[in-house]
């Protein structure tokens, strides 16, 4: 027996294994720390620190996103800054034109002087157009998304806007985007006021009607509904979550109830109806939804079959069938005539099936007119893309324009558009008086009135028009005054303060013996694009024709054009400022995130260096002890 004094035997192999193990460990640590020190990163592989890795990646992703937003903002700021600078230059040009206008409006200016100025105005117009066609990086700034097409071109008729009214948006922060362009319509008022389709086309429901158009465009909150019938006694859940059209709804109801409930569009085409064999029908919401109510068929208390729903009032969409509009009455397809400046076109709608077709026909009519569905989704608006001309519509032998509400009636005509666009010339104070049959007078001051209809209302509501005994109205193209006061008369209209308004409204000063005074025919000249281009074109014409009144009027038009440009400049400036603010926020955030990331991912150099030093010393110690241990053996001391 060999006694080891309670110590385990240590063999050369044990020594070898132990020494090797500790040397290997040290070497691994030294290598790892050296890698960390040279790369600067604490985490080299995902397994080095899986938790830290997750945080590091999350932070890195947040930093990347922020950097991208900043890059986007740079692009946006560049475009907006360029827009704002361009608008500034245009503003300066308008101020110059306005100065010429003041000078030329004076009585001392001669026809020759005005002709010379007309050339300068022409020059200014060209410069404004050139500026409005400014490009940045090859893309036009003011054409909406039509960035490769010069937005403004001077044609024989005026200045044509070729852009659209789309915004170009970019992401500037998490779920936040902003428009980085101002399209011509907004920046300059490049298109005219709309000839508003003021008839609600009120389309009937058809099976293809998308549910999203219902309820004035607010659509249907899709969920399930429950239909309960007494014959047969049954309660059915109908899942409408995937329904897209009215047809999907009726099919789903018929399918789920096994045909016991028949869903259809009512005869008036405005609502849905549910029919059972007999008895009553109740329709309830499921889980607090509003699906049944949105479909107009909510009936919590059972009603006798058939259940007739309420009007779900669909908007018109591009695919709305023309045949279903105007409560299914359709409209006369003869078409109408569009006049824009010297261009005239008669658009026929024969063969058109959908609203899209109708719009296409109008847009294709080569009169620089664009037609679109109005914002309310109820009708069609017409707009002129040409500055310097007037847009008007007239029937082409049928009733189409009236049916679509696109015929401008006299009461809608703006006073500015009367008399071939020259408008009326009100004076300070009363413009005219009306002497009634009983001798009482009504004094009319039209300042504040914008349309012919406003003037009619003014007369009817005048405080001197007691009872009222005088009724003004519009009939055809004339204003008609009807007097019910008893008296010898005559009924007459008298201009006051040298105002020409009465004449301009067709109520040429005069008198009639009877109770009805019918004015002479007046007409609007159509709508026009109220902008700097129109103002400059009109001013140039006025100078060339040496028309003193028109030259005077040009001042207000130029001011209006300038006001639009200034307003846009301010708006662009505000947007740019907001972008800069957002960018600063990103920069601040990035700084914080980078610090966090550095804490998680980066090596604490001092610590790592100390660790490295320590591990290296330990390695040296391990190597030295190994060398010593293996030199020591009994054999050295045996003879």
């Amino acid at each position, binding site marked *: 027996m*060999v006694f080891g004094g309670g110590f385990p035997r240590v063999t050369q*192999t044990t020594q070898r294994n132990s020494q090797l193990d500790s040397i290997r460990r040290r070497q691994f640590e030294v290598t790892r720390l050296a890698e960390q020190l040279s790369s600067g990163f604490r985490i080299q*592989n*995902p397994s080095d620190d899986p938790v830290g890795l*997750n945080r590091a*990646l999350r932070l890195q992703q947040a930093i990347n996103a922020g950097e991208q937003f900043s890059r986007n903002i740079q692009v946006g700021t560049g475009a907006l800054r360029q827009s704002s600078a361009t608008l500034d230059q245009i503003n300066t040009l308008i101020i110059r034109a306005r100065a010429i206008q003041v000078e030329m409006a004076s009585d001392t200016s001669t026809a020759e002087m005005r002709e010379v100025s007309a050339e300068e105005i022409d020059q200014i117009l060209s410069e404004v157009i050139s500026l409005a066609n400014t490009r940045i990086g090859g*893309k036009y700034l003011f054409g909406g998304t039509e960035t490769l097409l010069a937005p403004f071109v001077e044609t024989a008729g005026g200045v044509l806007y070729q852009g659209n009214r789309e915004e170009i948006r970019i992401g500037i922060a998490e779920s936040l985007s902003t428009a980085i362009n101002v399209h011509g319509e907004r920046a300059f008022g490049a298109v005219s006021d709309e000839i508003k389709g003021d008839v609600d086309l009120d389309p009937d429901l058809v099976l293809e009607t998308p549910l999203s158009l219902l309820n004035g465009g607010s659509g249907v909150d899709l969920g399930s509904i429950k239909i309960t019938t007494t014959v047969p006694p049954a309660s059915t859940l109908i899942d409408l979550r*995937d329904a897209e059209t009215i047809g999907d709804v009726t099919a789903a109801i018929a399918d789920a109830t096994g045909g016991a409930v028949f869903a259809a569009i009512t005869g008036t085409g405005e609502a849905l109806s549910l029919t059972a064999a007999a008895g009553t029908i109740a329709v309830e919401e499921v889980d607090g939804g509003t699906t049944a109510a949105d479909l107009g068929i909510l009936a919590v208390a059972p009603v006798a079959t058939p259940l007739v729903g309420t009007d779900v009032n669909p908007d018109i969409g591009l695919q709305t069938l023309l045949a279903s509009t105007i409560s299914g009455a359709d409209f006369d397809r003869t078409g109408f005539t569009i006049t824009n400046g010297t261009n005239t076109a008669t658009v026929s709608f024969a063969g058109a099936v959908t609203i899209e077709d109708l719009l296409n026909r109008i847009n294709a009519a080569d009169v620089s007119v664009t037609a679109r569905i109005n914002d309310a989704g109820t009708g069609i608006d017409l707009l002129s893309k040409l500055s310097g001309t007037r847009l008007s519509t007239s029937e082409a032998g049928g009733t189409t324009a009236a049916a679509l509400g696109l015929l401008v009636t006299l009461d809608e005509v703006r006073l500015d558009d009367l008399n071939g666009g020259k408008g009326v010339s009100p004076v300070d104070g009363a413009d005219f008086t009306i002497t009634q049959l009983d001798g009482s007078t009504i004094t009319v001051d039209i300042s504040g009135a914008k349309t012919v209809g406003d003037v009619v209302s003014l007369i009817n509501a005048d405080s001197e028009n007691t009872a009222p005994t005088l009724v003004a109205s519009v009939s055809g193209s004339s204003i008609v005054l009807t007097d019910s006061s008893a008296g010898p008369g005559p009924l007459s209209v008298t201009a006051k303060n040298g105002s020409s308004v009465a004449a301009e409204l067709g109520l040429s000063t005069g008198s009639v013996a009877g109770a009805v005074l019918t004015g002479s025919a007046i007409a609007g000249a159509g709508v026009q694009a109220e902008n700097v281009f129109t103002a400059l074109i009109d001013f140039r014409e006025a100078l060339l024709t040496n028309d003193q009144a028109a030259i005077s009027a040009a001042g207000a038009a130029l001011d209006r054009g300038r006001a639009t440009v200034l307003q846009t400049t301010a708006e662009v400036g505000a947007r740019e400022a907001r972008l800069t603010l957002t960018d600063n926020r990103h920069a601040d955030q990035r700084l914080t995130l980078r610090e966090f990331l550095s804490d998680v991912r980066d090596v604490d150099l001092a610590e790592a260096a100390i660790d490295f030093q320590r591990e290296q010393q330990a390695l040296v110690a391990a190597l030295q002890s190994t060398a010593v241990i293996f030199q020591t*053996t009994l054999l050295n001391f045996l003879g």
Partner: protein
Amino acid sequence: MGGLFDSFKIGESALRAQQVALQTTGHNIANATTEGYSRQRVIFETTRPQDLIFAQLGTGVQVAKIERVINESLETAIQDARSDLGSLQVQTDSLRQLESIFNQFTEGDLDTALSRFFEALEELAGNPEERGVRELVLAEAQTLTDKLRFVGDAIDRLREQLDDELRSNVNSANTILVELAELNGEIVRLENAGEQFRTANDLRDRRDFLLKELSGSVDIRTTEESTGHVNVSAGGVQLVFRQTANLLTTDVRADDGVSVTDIRVGDGALLPLVSGELEGTVKLRDTVLPQFQRDLDEFTRVFVDEFNKVHSTGRGLERFTSLDSRVAVHERNETLVPLRVEDTVTTGGLTGSLNSTGLAAAFADDDLNGLKLVVLSGANAGLERTILDFSGVTGTVTFAGEFPAAFAPGDRFAITSLDFPPEDGSFDLVITSQLTGETKTFNIDVDLDGIGADDKLADIVSEITAELLAFYGAGSEPLTASITSDNRLRLARTSSDFTFSFASDTSGFLAAMGLGTFFAGRTARTVGLDPAIAGKPELVAAAKSNAPGDNSNALDLIALRTDLLFTSGTASSEDFLRGLIGKLGTESREAQDLLRNQESLTLNLENQRESISGVNLDEESLNLIIHQRAFQAAARYISAIDQMLQVLLNL
């Protein structure tokens, strides 16, 4: 009292015994570094004494036995530790390799590629008119798909590499098993050959060494019979019984595009694996790596599908003049099978449900073969498999690849021939006149609501044709729709005055058919750019209108970066990738930590064994001197007896 000649015998026995001891010491020193060697020691005993009247007289020394110094229970503990060590070593190595495949924290990692792709899309949103930016988008998309394919392929390669290792491991295990059976025979024969039992020390050392080697590969249990046989079993299956080895066999099967080897024992049953290198290899090959592959595939599939859905409804700088769908409908039955068939599992097994009246009645036996079954709800939700064989008569169905979980009643599934099952809905076909720029929109209904007959591809073609005919009149249609001979949808313009594009698809039909899609291929290993868009940057759909500055579709594509598309709407694409890398890091870290512990444990056990069975050279040197001196003394004793004999002879 014996004579002097007897005294010579004592000296002779001592010389002989010390010689044996010296030889054993020499053997020990010689094998000081032999792996698995346990030191031997000589046990001396006195020879039978001579009986005298007054006492017993010693007659010398003899060698009782030469024994191994060994602790048997320690040997078993080391075997177990070796098994666990083997399993962990394989796992650690492979997971580290997988980490280097993902190449995280470098410019070449997946999330950098994804991030770059989205950055290119942001550039596109800023400059949709520029061809250069569009080319950048395509290039970054190529990099992203290359990277996905690289990682997907590399995982396959890693699985193949593991399988190679597995096979060579099985071979060496078999060699060991054969040698063990032979050693059993030799040991028993040698130990029982003479009249006296002798321990076959060196052969036993060899056997113990082989058992330890084997336990690194397979988790074995050993029992020694009294005869000296050692029987070896793994998971209850005998591998060595006495002198018979039950060899391991391999058979190869295909799994998800990789050929994998199953290990069986002689009678054909699968070898049960609890621990050891084989277990570690199989676990990685069949569980860990496929899970990463599946995650990567899910990432690819969801990302590609969602991206395609948005892309297919946008418009490029140029519109289409003619277009064939990338996806073909099922070859034999394009007019029979609706674009989507939906059913519910009605019994526990999918087999029963496929035979439910709805499907079996609607389809002949093989109508569904080659179609894709997509599980919509339940434990397998989101997974899809191709139907290899469907029999409506017997209600049996086989898939390419098994579903990991069991189906339960109520699970919904859809069958389709397309990339993914489209929904009931509609899409817009927009025709642009190249002359006037005017657009005309046709809303094409995709009827898949399960009410009445659902749409087949032929129905969609008819609908397009009918709508065009109604509007443009016979012979003036700007576009024809047809099904090609290889069962693709073909849209082709009839006049150069027209181009076409798509919009607002609520059905997913366009993306599912591969019409105007951006990516093709829905697994990490197959993903790439749609061939129709590769090299055609002008087709990248940044817009939703014909205006070149329109970036609205690009913005929708960018939104996919943060949209919660993954893991039932809780994770974005970046979250998902981060989770994947995180999981890899955690698993690798865990394996490394376990391995380090196991290494310490094993080293500890080996040291214990060494402290008992190892050769200490100092100790042996000491023994050498002792036995040498004893030998010298014995010789001196003989010489003394000799002198005594001389004295007598000289009398």
